[in-house]
C-alpha cells in the first residue's frame, strides 16, 4: 500500500509542476525542441483501442512520445472542441480523429488539414475499402483529408437470459433466423413483451432509427439527409420516411424502453437488465461492456441485424496543418491505419477494420468476444463489412440528424403524434441546416 501511495504522491507532484508551467494545455506538442524527443498528441473520442499500438510505435521510434487525449469522451463533446481548435489555429492534436458523419463539414475547409496525397499516401489506396478511401477525399479528389480507421458494420446485440425468460431461442443462429426483416423483429418484440419479463425489448427508438435509416439509405439512394449535391432532402428522400415509419411501428408496438441514449437512465438500464436488444454497430460492443459492467459478462450475445447490412459510424485520422510535427504525425497516422494497426485496435477495443487485408486476416476472422458469450465477432462483422454500402453524408449532417432524432424521441415519449413528429423533423432539420 505504501508504494502505491508514494507513486501517487509523485504523480501529484509531476502533474502540479506541469500544470503550473502551463505546458499540458498547449496541444500540438510545441514544447519539443529540435534535438529533443517529439511529442505527438492524438485526439480521439470514445475508444479507438490504440494503447498497445502506441507502446509498439514508441519502442521502435525512441524519439517519439505519444499522448492520446479525449479517450472515452462523447462525440457530441469532442467534435465541437476540434472545431474550436481548428478555428483558433491552435490547440488541436497532431493527429485528430474525425467521425464520418462530420467529415463533410471539415472537408469544407480543406486548408485546415495536410494533404496526405502530398506525402505518399496514394500508395496506400489498396489498404482501404474503396468507398472508405473515397470518403477521405475532397470533392475534387485532389486532397486526401483522412485515412480510414474503422467501419461500423452492424449487428443486433441481445440478452440471452432475457430471451430464455421469454421462451425465445437463445442460440445466435436461431435468433438471427427470427428476424430477417424489421417487421419480423417487431413481431418477435411483441412475443417478448407479452411474456412480461420486466424488461423492454429495445433500449430506445433513436439509435434504432439511425440504424434502419443507414441501412435503408445504403440499400437505395446511397444518401440520407443530403443528396450527393449537398441539397437537404429530409422531406423528400423516401429512405428517410421509410426508416421513420418503421421506427413508428416499433414505437406503436410499445417495444421501446424509452431510455434516452447516452443518458444516466440508459446506463442504469444496462445495469438493471431493463432491455433485451440493442442495435449494435461494431463499436457499440465496447459501450455495452462498459455500461453493463462485469456482472453481465456472458449474458449478452450477438446476432444478425434485421434487414440487410448497413454501416453506422467509422472514423478517419487526419493531420491538421497547425501541427508542428507534420512529418512525424503523418507517419504515425499511416501506422495506426495500416492493416496491422487496425487489427491491433480491433483486438483491444473492437472497432471493425476498414482495410480488406485486415478483414481477411485470421486474427480478425477467428476472434471471439468473451464478454458476448464467445461470439465470433470477427466473422459476424467482417463478413458483412466487405459488402457494406456506404451512405453519403452532407455538410450539416450531425445537426440535421440531431433534429430528426429529437423528433423521433418526442414521439417515443408520447409528446407528439407520428404525423406531428414528422412535420417537426422536416421543419427543424431545415432550420438547423440553415444556421
Amino acid at each position, binding site marked *: 500500500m505504501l508504494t502505491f501511495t508514494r507513486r501517487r504522491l509523485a504523480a501529484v507532484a509531476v502533474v502540479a509542476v506541469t500544470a503550473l508551467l502551463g505546458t499540458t494545455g498547449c496541444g500540438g506538442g510545441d514544447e519539443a525542441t529540435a534535438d529533443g524527443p517529439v511529442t505527438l498528441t492524438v485526439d480521439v473520442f470514445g475508444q479507438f483501442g490504440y494503447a498497445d499500438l502506441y507502446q509498439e510505435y514508441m519502442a521502435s521510434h525512441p524519439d517519439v512520445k505519444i499522448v492520446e487525449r479525449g479517450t472515452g469522451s462523447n462525440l*457530441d*463533446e469532442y*467534435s*465541437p*472542441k476540434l*472545431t*474550436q481548435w*481548428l*478555428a483558433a489555429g491552435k490547440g488541436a492534436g497532431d493527429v485528430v480523429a474525425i467521425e464520418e458523419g462530420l467529415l463533410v463539414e471539415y472537408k469544407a*475547409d480543406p486548408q485546415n488539414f495536410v494533404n496526405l496525397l502530398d506525402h505518399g499516401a496514394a500508395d496506400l489506396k489498396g489498404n482501404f475499402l474503396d468507398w472508405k478511401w473515397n470518403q477521405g477525399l475532397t470533392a475534387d479528389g485532389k486532397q486526401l483529408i483522412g485515412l480510414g480507421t474503422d467501419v461500423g458494420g452492424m449487428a443486433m446485440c441481445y440478452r440471452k437470459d432475457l430471451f430464455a425468460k421469454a421462451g425465445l431461442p437463445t442460440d445466435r443462429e436461431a435468433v438471427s433466423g427470427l428476424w430477417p426483416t424489421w417487421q419480423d423483429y417487431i413481431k418477435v418484440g411483441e412475443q417478448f413483451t407479452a411474456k412480461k419479463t420486466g424488461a423492454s425489448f429495445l433500449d430506445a427508438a*433513436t439509435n434504432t432509427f439511425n440504424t434502419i435509416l443507414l441501412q435503408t439509405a445504403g440499400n437505395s439512394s446511397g444518401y440520407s439527409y443530403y443528396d450527393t449535391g449537398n441539397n437537404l432532402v429530409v422531406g423528400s428522400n423516401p429512405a428517410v420516411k421509410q426508416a421513420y415509419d418503421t421506427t413508428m411501428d416499433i414505437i406503436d408496438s410499445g417495444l421501446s424502453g424509452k*431510455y*434516452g*441514449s*447516452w*443518458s*444516466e*437512465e*440508459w446506463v*442504469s*438500464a444496462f445495469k*438493471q437488465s*431493463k432491455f433485451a436488444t440493442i442495435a449494435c454497430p461494431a463499436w457499440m460492443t465496447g459501450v455495452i461492456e462498459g455500461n453493463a459492467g462485469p456482472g453481465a459478462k456472458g449474458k449478452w450475445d450477438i446476432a444478425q441485424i434485421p434487414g440487410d447490412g448497413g454501416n453506422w459510424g467509422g472514423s478517419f485520422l487526419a493531420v491538421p496543418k497547425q501541427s508542428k510535427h507534420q512529418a512525424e504525425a503523418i507517419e504515425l497516422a499511416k501506422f495506426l491505419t495500416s492493416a496491422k494497426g487496425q487489427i491491433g485496435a480491433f483486438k483491444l477495443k473492437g472497432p471493425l477494420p476498414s482495410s480488406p487485408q485486415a478483414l481477411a486476416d485470421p486474427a480478425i476472422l477467428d476472434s471471439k468476444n468473451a464478454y458476448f458469450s464467445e461470439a465470433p465477432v470477427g466473422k459476424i462483422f467482417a463478413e458483412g463489412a466487405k459488402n457494406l454500402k456506404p451512405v453519403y453524408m452532407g455538410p450539416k449532417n*450531425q*445537426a440535421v440528424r*440531431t433534429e430528426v*432524432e*429529437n*423528433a423521433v*424521441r*418526442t414521439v417515443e*415519449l408520447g*409528446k407528439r403524434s407520428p404525423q406531428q413528429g414528422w412535420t417537426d423533423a422536416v421543419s427543424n432539420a431545415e432550420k438547423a441546416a440553415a*444556421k
Partner: protein
Amino acid sequence: MAVQLDARPPVAPAPRHSRPLRGARLSRFDTKYSPYLYIAPFFLLFGVFGAYPLAYTFWVSLHDWDLLGAEHPFIGLDNYSQLLADPDFWHSVVNTLGIFVISTVPQLLAALWLANLLNRRLRARTTWRMAVLVPNVTSTAAVAIVFAVLFGRDFGMINWLLDHVGISAIDWKANRFAAWVAISTMVDWRWTGYNALIFLAAMQAIPRDLYESAAIDGAGRARQFWSITVPLLKPTIVFAVIISTIGGLQLFTEPRMFNSGTNAIRGGPLRESQTVTMYMFENAFAPHYNFGYGSAIAWLLFALIAVVAAINVLFLRRLGGGSRKEVSR
C-alpha cells in the same frame, strides 16, 4: 440594497511640521496618490476582464460573427430582430422565468420560516445553522449530478418514494413543468439555508421591545411575525430577491448537468428545461458557433434581468407599504 457610501469620516492626513523636507514631499505624494495605487488593481483587472467584455459583447452582437468565418460583416440590429422572432429563444425565456418563479417564491418563504425557527433560544445553535447552510457549500456540478439521478424516471429515488404514496412515475426530464420543478428543487436546496441566515441576521437586529409592546396589545406570534418581522425585513428581502434574480435568470450549471446524454445543452428533445444561458451557449459555442447571435442573446438576457429586478423591487415596495404604518404606530 441600502448602500451607505459615507459610513465613517475618512482620516485626514495629520498636519506635519517637524519632518525633513524630502520625507514630507514623499509623504504628501503618498497620501495623495497611494490610494489610487490600492484601488488600481481592481479597476485595471475588472476593466480588462469584466467591463470590456461586456461592452465588446454588444459590438459583437452587431455583426455576423461566426467562429469559423474569416470575416465578420456588420449587420446592425439584424441579430436582435432575428432573435425576437425566434420561438426557441422565447421558449428558453419562459423556461427561465418559470424556473425562477417556482424556485424563488417557495425558497424565500421557506427561508423566512427557517430563519424564524433559528431565531429562538436553541441548543447547539451553530450546529443547526451549519446544517441548513451545508448545501450552499457543496459543488454545484456534483450535486446536480446527484439530483439528476434522484429525479430519474425509472430508477430515481423520488419516483420510488412517490410510488409509495400512490403517485405513478413522473418523467422529470421529458415533462416540461416537472423539469422546472426538479431544477427548482436543486436551486432551493442550495439557497434556502443561505437566505435563512441572511434573514436571521436581519431579524436579530429588530429591537425586542417592538415585539413586547405588540404582545401587550394582544398580538399573537403569527401576527407579530407578519406585522413586525416581515415589514422590517423588507430591505433584506429586497436584497435577497435581487440576488436571486441575478443568479436565477442566469441559471446554467444545474439544468445543464440535469440533462445528460445526447444534446444535453438543449435541455431535452423539446428543450423542456433549456434556460436562456444554455441557449446562449448552444448558439455561441457548440454546435453553432455563432458569436454574433450568442452575444445578442447575452444582451437580451441582461435586459431581462434588469427588468425583472426592477419589477421585483416595485412589487415588494407596494406589498410592504400598508403594514409599515402599523408597526410604527
